[in-house]
């Protein structure tokens, strides 16, 4: 017979749920407000979302404090796992979201922001990602992932033009396939170990001494395939350029950061123990993934004619670069991953925001796409400040010191060096050099070419409003003065990662 369940409320550690609950409550509230009184301006919802995100951030600070004191906290039937990784990644998720949401306040009107549902879905998505990173249960990971993904597909489609639907459908379909891979991989792991909790899986495999290596590899294959899709590793990357192009620029920037950090955290949880257990295959495969993704994406980025697409490929390449951390799997590498991602989010969001600010509704004759390189020709003459800032982001992405991303690169390559991956370190360095070309290409267009006739520079600020400018300014300042905040950041990240056992 079943025993009645007696669970003390305290043992549930409900506080662990707080960071996820806040956006969910916020989303529901927004829907309720819309139901009660429709037709309210988007600025209200932006403000509300921002408020909830700030509250979320506050609870995260609290959680960070708790973690610093007591270490990893499990909660709600050990379903929630609040460790350093979860906290840092949630900081990045929420922080990046806070940078993203004011971008809705554009000068021109775009379709998605006319929906209160947009903001609700956005908050749900954040909650989904938060669940995904704050657990080691494959079911919750899966459900969180799907919640976030479904919301994301919709958010992309809500931009409401042909390209965005195309993007959403492509993303959705491939996402469904990836979901199939994920469930199949989980199934094999379950078959092997009888568990779907990562630490238990690890323990069981360890105890079995990886006897069923074939099974393990099948599981890893499918899980890797599904996360490679999320992380846009070649050849699972094919969605990324199209989706980035179809989505609004701000959304593209957001997509290049937040879903990926969530996926990275899960990947780290999943593969860390496998790598440490010396599964040579995985090491080889990840090595190949890292190198191919970095290199191929860079090479494709070289030939792009649209800035946004170029940035999409560059994001893929950066993902490959960061994937190296998973391969190297030392504390330094894992810290480098987060450090890199924090700095990357500043820079990349900034760059995409610049594109967003210059987004027109209708293409003039001289432009072949929304953000073709021609559009930026001679920008220094017509919009010098914007050109300088855009150039700054490009330099940072290229890894020119002392701008933000350089420090990430530095630390990442250093971790490769320390981890004994000499050749990898060199490949990473050389890839940065290849990448230099396409970033510089935009700089060349902006600073060294003459403007196209009919381009009076207004186009670069067509969407500019104070919030947009503030966000870009914030990103720019973060990019330039990254070095100032670097030391506390690195110490914080290292401590959290180390104390989480990674």
């Amino acid at each position, binding site marked *: *017979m*079943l025993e009645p*369940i007696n*669970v003390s409320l305290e043992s549930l550690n409900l506080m662990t*749920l707080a960071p996820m609950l806040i956006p*969910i409550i916020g989303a529901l509230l927004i829907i309720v407000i819309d139901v009660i009184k*429709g*037709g*309210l*301006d*988007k600025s209200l919802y932006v403000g509300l979302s921002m408020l909830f995100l700030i509250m979320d951030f506050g609870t995260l600070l609290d959680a960070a404090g708790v973690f610093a004191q007591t270490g990893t906290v499990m909660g*709600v*039937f050990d*379903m929630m796992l609040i460790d350093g990784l979860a906290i840092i990644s949630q900081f990045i998720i929420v922080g990046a979201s806070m940078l993203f949401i004011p971008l809705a306040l554009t000068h*021109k*009107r*775009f*379709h*998605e922001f*006319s*929906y*209160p*549902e947009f903001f609700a*879905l956005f908050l*749900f998505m954040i*909650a*989904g990602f938060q*669940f995904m990173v704050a*657990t080691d249960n494959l*079911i*919750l990971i899966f*459900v*969180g992932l*799907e*919640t976030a993904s*479904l*919301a994301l*597909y*919709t958010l992309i*489609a*809500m*931009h*409401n033009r042909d390209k965005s639907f195309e993007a959403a459908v492509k993303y959705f379909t491939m996402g469904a396939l990836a979901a199939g891979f994920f469930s199949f991989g989980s199934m094999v792991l379950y*078959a*092997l*170990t*009888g*568990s779907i*909790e990562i630490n*238990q899986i690890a323990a*069981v495999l360890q*105890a*079995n001494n990886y*006897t*069923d290596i*074939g*099974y393990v590899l*099948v599981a890893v294959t499918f899980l890797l395939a599904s996360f490679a899709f999320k992380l846009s590793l070649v050849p699972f990357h094919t969605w990324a350029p199209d989706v980035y192009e179809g989505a609004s620029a701000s959304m593209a920037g957001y997509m290049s950061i937040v879903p990926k950090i969530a996926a990275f955290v899960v990947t780290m949880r999943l593969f860390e123990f496998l790598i440490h257990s010396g599964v040579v295959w995985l090491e080889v495969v990840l090595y190949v993934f890292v190198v191919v993704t970095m290199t191929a994406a860079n090479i494709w980025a070289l030939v792009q004619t649209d800035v946004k697409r170029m940035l999409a490929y560059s994001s893929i390449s950066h993902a490959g670069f960061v994937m190296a951390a998973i391969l190297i799997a030392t504390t330094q590498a894992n810290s480098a991953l987060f450090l890199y991602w924090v700095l990357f989010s500043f820079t990349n969001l900034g760059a995409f925001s610049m594109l967003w600010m210059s987004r027109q*509704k*209708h293409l003039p004759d001289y432009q072949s796409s929304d953000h073709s390189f021609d559009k930026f020709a001679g920008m220094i003459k017509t919009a010098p400040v914007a050109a300088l800032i855009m150039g700054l982001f490009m330099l940072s992405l290229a890894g020119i010191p002392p701008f933000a991303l350089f420090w990430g690169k530095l630390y990442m390559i250093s971790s490769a060096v320390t981890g004994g991956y000499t050749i990898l370190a060199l490949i990473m360095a050389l890839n940065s050099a290849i990448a230099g070309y396409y970033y510089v290409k935009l700089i060349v267009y902006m600073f060294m070419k003459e403007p196209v006739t009919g381009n009076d520079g207004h186009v670069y600020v067509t969407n500019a409003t104070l919030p947009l400018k503030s966000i870009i300014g914030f990103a720019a300042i973060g990019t330039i003065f990254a070095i100032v905040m670097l030391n506390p950041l690195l110490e914080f990240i290292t401590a959290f990662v180390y104390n989480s056992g990674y």
Partner: protein
Amino acid sequence: MFEAVAFYLFSFLTIAMFFIAVTTSQALYALTALAAGMIFISAFFFILGADFLGAIQIVVYSGAVMALYAFGMMFFDTTRDVKEKKGNKMIIVGLGTLAAILVVVIFATPMVADNIVAFYPMTEGVGNTQDVGMVLFTKYLIPFEVAAVMLLVAMISGIVLAGKKMDLSLTLMSDAEIKDVKKEKNKKVLS
């Protein structure tokens, strides 16, 4: 013996149904075959003693999902023959069979699985549904709630995407056009 017969029978049926579902050029056949396949899968669930799952399978898939698809099919008018362009069949079949063979090769070998402990063992003498309920509302409470959120998201998404407001695209309209539309239409439509 019964189990073996049932397994092979339903295996054959599901494989056949799903095979039809992915190969037929008649959308209606595909839909029907898919629905049948889903039903046959629920049979496996019953065989394996997962009664709750079996029920859910029939309700959700054969009921809700199939209904949605049927609706969709009518909406999209795909009852006519679907032309599948001649692609490179070799790749598709090749990849498919290769995948199957590879995994089958591995799965054909029995697992060692020494240290498997049932973390949430089935309780003897308790109905499957009850059993499932116990676990679902303790350990899997959070995923369950998140799943609820997910369904909410799906619902909102469906409503938003299929809704009338998507017919006009503010993204593609200039400010002047938006103003005009605003005057004509109900304010609630466009906030």
